[in-house]
């Protein structure tokens, strides 16, 4: 298990009622396993899986991306700037 801090934005903050959540992620330490661990706590997140993007260290990466302790992990819901 590793400890991962996940940042939330926009509508996802309304679901988790926080800007950031710290959780223990089982191996493999990927975006997928991180999301799965979050869905256990916040089932409502599951409907966002198709549209949400994963960012690690300020870059979009696939959910298969390997997450390491200390990475900045963020869930990015569909953007609506402009």
């Amino acid at each position, binding site marked *: 298990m590793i400890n991962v801090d996940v940042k939330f934005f926009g509508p996802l903050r309304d679901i988790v009622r926080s800007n950031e959540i710290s959780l223990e992620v089982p191996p493999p330490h990927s975006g997928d396993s991180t999301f799965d661990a979050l869905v256990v706590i916040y089932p409502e997140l599951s409907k966002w899986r198709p549209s949400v993007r994963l*960012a690690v260290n300020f870059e979009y990466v696939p959910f298969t991306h390997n997450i390491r302790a200390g990475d900045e992990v963020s869930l990015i819901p569909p953007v*609506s*700037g402009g």
Partner: protein
Amino acid sequence: MVSISTSTINVPAIIAAVATPQSGAMDIFIGTVRNNSGARKISRLEYSAYVPMAEKLMTAIELDLRSKWSVHEVIMVHRVGMLEVGDVAVVTAVSSAHRKEAFEACRFAIDQIKSIVPIWKKEFADDGEMWVEGEHLEGIQEMKSGPFSA
């Protein structure tokens, strides 16, 4: 120059900053807060951003743009916080020798911002609040960006 700003965007300052002696064209896109969203009456919009990633991606957009078009100055600024109808939410400004490059590059900049930069808006309408799912300068002088400015 790119930035996420918590203060009013100074459009004249941006225009002055992209002007160069060798430029024969400047294209400025100004995105403002509209009073409606379809049938809904909008009173204000709240923009938030993942600031460090937003600025990183906006810088990447500028580099991409410069690889595609020959341009002089590029400025992209998106505001965050609570905005009223009519307020300027985003400005993209490009200068170049001739108009074609400036038009195309400016459009590319705003289109890319709207599609990939982690910025979100929440509408405050007569029938309640709603996050927009979808598709944002500052004065060049005050570039304030803090984590999760809201």
